[in-house]
């Protein structure tokens, strides 16, 4: 999707020192040798970039819930909503290890497999609902998470992925960014 909103990609070489510091932080935390377009498209506004990066880092990168579960949630919501950038990017993150093992059994294409523990499947299902239909979330959804073994802190952390993915999808969609070539190379 191409946006009319004037988001401009600010490459690392053209970024201000302040923005370069944030870019470096994203590379360190995500273990990537390049800046993702999702950050580069916010490079002209350091204040918002810093705020959005802080939100992403504390919600997705840090915490006690395995990162794979979070990546699967963001992939699933993005795919169902039709955010191509986020669906592709987070599928790459989620499947990265599977690819390196040289098999074709890709996690994002087997979300219903019973090889995936109930805790993963329940988290993906309930948080996807929270992201796409937040008004319909009821106590039963929280009970499902608790029955899957998640404690209060983990449930809050999981639910935080719902509002994170909405922010990720919104910015990706309205900025019209394309999937990063470097990410496609990792996936190939």
């Amino acid at each position, binding site marked *: 999707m191409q946006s009319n909103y004037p988001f401009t990609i600010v490459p690392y070489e053209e970024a201000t020192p302040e923005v370069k510091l944030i870019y470096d932080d994203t590379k360190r935390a995500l273990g990537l040798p390049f800046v993702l377009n999702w950050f580069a498209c916010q490079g002209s506004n350091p204040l918002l970039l810093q705020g959005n990066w802080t939100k992403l880092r504390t919600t997705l990168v840090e915490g*006690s819930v*395995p*990162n*794979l*579960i979070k990546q699967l949630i963001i992939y699933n919501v993005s795919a169902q909503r039709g955010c191509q950038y986020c669906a592709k990017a987070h599928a790459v993150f989620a499947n990265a*290890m*599977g690819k390196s*093992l*040289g*098999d*074709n*059994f890709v*996690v994002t294409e*087997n979300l219903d*497999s*019973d*090889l*995936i*523990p*109930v*805790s*993963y499947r329940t988290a993906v299902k309930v948080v996807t609902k929270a992201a796409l239909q937040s008004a319909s979330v009821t106590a039963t959804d929280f009970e499902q998470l*608790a*029955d*899957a*073994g*998640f*404690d209060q802190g*983990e449930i809050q952390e999981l639910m935080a992925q719902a509002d994170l993915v909405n922010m990720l999808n919104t910015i990706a969609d309205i900025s019209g960014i394309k999937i990063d070539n470097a990410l496609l190379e990792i996936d190939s």
Partner: protein
Amino acid sequence: MSTVLAFKYRLIYESLSRFSSALSRSTTLDQVRQCLQGQIKYLFDYQLVRFSFYQQGYYVTFSLVPTGSNVVCGSAGLLWKHEQILSESHVPAILDDAALIADSLQPSQLRLPEKPTQIWGWHVAFSADSGLIVSVFSGGDRQFQPADVPILRIAVENLYAKILSIKLIEELGSKQQELQLALSNLQEKNDVIAQLVATQEAVIQYRTQELEHKNTRLLEVSRQHAHTIREPLSRILSLAYLMETFSAEEIMEEMMPMLVVTSHDLDKALQQIISSIDADLTTAG
């Protein structure tokens, strides 16, 4: 590596790493329980998991369901029915005898999500008198699978090493406390002995001073009374020398009475000195 196992490893490698990390940070059995409660759900599905550690007749059992857990320490009486079987046979087994499952679950105080239909059990002996009996109650939506076995094996090895290290640290702590107590007792006894020695030294010093004082006084008394003895003694000696120049009649008539008188004088002088010394020693003592 099979595709299924590779997929399983992909799924849980991060969680297994987190489990190992959380376990390594645990320093008490309750922290281990919390680690198991938080992390095992990311590794495989279960209705209930039991980890029963044993060493030289001492048992630690962890019971775990998705919504709760407990840890208990004690004797072999803590083992559930199926664990007693595994304990004796050492043979891994998938048990699906409903009566045995019900029997085994009898002591459990935890609420299982659904009725389990299988128990997957292992008795992993790490030495002649130490090991871990592991059992996973499986069934319903939470099926334990063959692909989970290698994952469980890794978890079990980590867990055994952790429990062993905690137990070792506890034993060392207990020994250290005993040593501290023994050291404290020794210190107390040492203090008592030091006090006794100090008292003895004081007594000896006092007695020595007393003796020195008496010796000094004796010398002084001897000096003071020497002239008292010397005077009659000189007279006796003089009489003795004179006897050579006198005849026998003269000695008997003139000198003997003088000798008797002088001897009495000497005797009196000696008695005075002895009385004086006795009085002085009595006063000094």
